């Protein structure tokens, strides 16, 4: 079982110049109402008190709800921008990436709008790298077309870990992560368990059958970069 503390690695990145600056990543969801991607993105953002710019288009808000501050934690201020068109979402994200004071920029886009092409994602990626602000695009009901996002994930919920005190209640959330396109690290598939109280994300390779179970640790270490 390979485990790592994501936020430590991310905190160490700022000192190291080079390819590991914050950049644009995309998260695709198989089902629209699944909140696993939101949880994963929030777990990956560096834990600071810098505000997060969260841009939603109208359909995402209507179909998948809005981020709920009581669940996210009030120590992380949000600036919500509710827009109706995907082009406006991209404009607002790009404008937000000019501001280095943000702790992250999250955009939610529904479907495959024509404005969200290779050029638009490349602009976002280059701006995110220039400002060193993590930028995430959460795509619902979308197909993974051509994109300049440096990392592309497919994220879904899995049945939760057992609750330590209550056998019939769901415990820590588990997600299946599929990194299917990346410039910086080896691709792979993991099962992640997230502990919100300690902000700890444990990655493990999925057990396809008993014979492969020995290789788990190596896969997890590779994910650490």
């Amino acid at each position, binding site marked *: 079982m390979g485990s790592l503390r994501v936020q430590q690695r991310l905190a160490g990145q700022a000192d190291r110049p080079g390819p590991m600056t914050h950049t644009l990543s995309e998260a695709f969801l198989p*089902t629209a*109402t*699944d*909140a*696993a991607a*939101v*949880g*994963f993105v*929030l777990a990956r953002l560096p834990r600071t008190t*810098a*505000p997060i*710019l969260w841009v939603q288009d109208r359909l995402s*808000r*209507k179909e*998948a*709800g*809005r*981020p*709920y*501050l*009581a*669940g*996210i*934690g*009030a120590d992380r*201020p*949000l*600036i*919500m*921008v*509710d*827009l109706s068109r995907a082009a*406006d979402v991209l*404009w*607002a994200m790009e*404008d*937000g990436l*000019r*501001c*280095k*004071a*943000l702790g992250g920029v999250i955009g939610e886009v529904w479907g495959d709008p024509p404005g969200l092409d290779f050029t638009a994602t490349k602009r976002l990626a280059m701006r995110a790298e220039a400002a060193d602000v993590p930028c995430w695009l959460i795509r619902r009901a979308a197909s993974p077309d051509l994109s300049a996002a440096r990392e592309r994930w497919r994220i*879904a*919920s*899995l*049945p*939760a870990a057992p*609750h330590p005190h*209550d056998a*019939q*209640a*769901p415990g820590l*959330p*588990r*997600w299946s992560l599929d990194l299917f396109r990346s410039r910086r690290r080896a691709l792979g598939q993991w099962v992640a368990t*997230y502990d*919100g109280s300690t902000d700890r994300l444990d990655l493990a390779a999925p057990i396809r059958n008993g014979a492969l179970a020995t290789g788990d640790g190596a896969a997890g270490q590779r994910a650490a970069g």
Partner: protein
Amino acid sequence: MERWQRVMERQGNAPPDDIPIVLAREGHHGPVIHATNRAARMNGINPGSRVVDMRAICPELQVEYADPAGDRAALDRLVLWARRWCPWTVRDGEDGLILDTTGSDHLMGGEAAMLVEMEAQLSLLGLSAQLAVAPTWGAAWALARFGPVRSVCGLDEVGVKLGALPVTGLRLDGETVLLLRRLGLKTIGAVMDVPRLSLTRRFVKAGLEANPLMRLDQALGKLAEPVASVDAKPRFRVQSRLAEPIFDPTPYLPELCENLCEALKQAGQGCRRLQLTVYRTDGDVSHVDVATSATTCDPTHLHGLFRDKVERINPGFGFDLITLEAGSVEEMQARQNRLDGGADDDLHLTRLVDRLSAKFGPRAVTRPVLRESHIPERAEGQVAALAALAGTGAAVMKERPLRLFDHPEEVRVLYAVPEGPPAQFVWRRQTHRVARYAGPERIAPEWWKDRPGTRLRDYFKVEDQAGRRIWLYREGLHEDGRGGDPRWFVHGCFA
């Protein structure tokens, strides 16, 4: 009263003069009369008496409600308007103006001529006034209210002129006036004649409002009472006059912004609002407003806010005058928080909020804050990101979902047991089988806010067969007497 009369005349439904009309305000025992018109005064109606009593005296009385705050604001404007006669003016209580005319009366040809001029100008505004000139604030107050018309009082005749006036002219509160009357002191002169020592002994502990001796000293000039004038706020406005009409103000904007910011900087001020006005050749005016979340006087930032808005100006046949005016001007101190001269983070953030609000409208950019409530949708409030951040409510202890739906979505359920979670439910035409659940967490309605029939909610965190964790609630209980069978709703999603 006269302000009300002007307002009604402007609206075109002013009543005729012979109908008695009073303005009322709320008193301790029902409405009392605040002001009267002439017809009401002729009928013997006095300010300060109760409306019901006066209705008995004068059945055809019309009662309107007074607007004290509006009166005060109008009086504040009048204070500045009165600067035409002298540079030092201040509002006096609820119904008076004090003008320090020292050295400015000769411009109007003496004090008496000045009073005539003032009365004429005020009557052009539709206001009647009682005027007096005196060496002190207190003496002027008393002479204007109780003295002869347009009395002018020199420095040496204050005592003589005040002596004949009633003790009410000393600006005392009601109880002290009553006390002095009971003591047999009906005029100011009588108070002056009483030996000072005995009055001092009697009122040694009284405050200024209840102390006739101090008020007398103020009126006679023995106790200083300076007039603290208010400052009119300067208006920051730049304009550019064009030789011939144009249709697009964009090339002129940078220079206008720079000039305005230069003026603001020199005064040490910053603005939070900007109004760009173009005066069209066909006699019409159109304007564009932008707002910022923090006071600023940075020309490039302000210019950037107008980027897409200028297109919304309707130029008509062109315009030949552009003005840019700063609103909500506040004092601003330039801060440098890093020695290397780097800009600080807050500044970047406020500018980002400004840019987003300017493009998408202030209602699209919000900042969620926690509020004190157990009802999930009320525990989070939206404030405009432009507004200042108020104190936040307490953090929620229970587990809450990451996503919340604006409107809870009703689902059809299949029960296992009536009081527990459903065995399966149909949400958005998909069947979810409940594999595991946690709960219930019961949240009772807030009776001080909700309608009487509101039902309680039992929240369950359920996990379906695919592993998605959903926040469900049942509204009401079976047989709780508040409607039929309880309904089920999906309210949010956990990570």
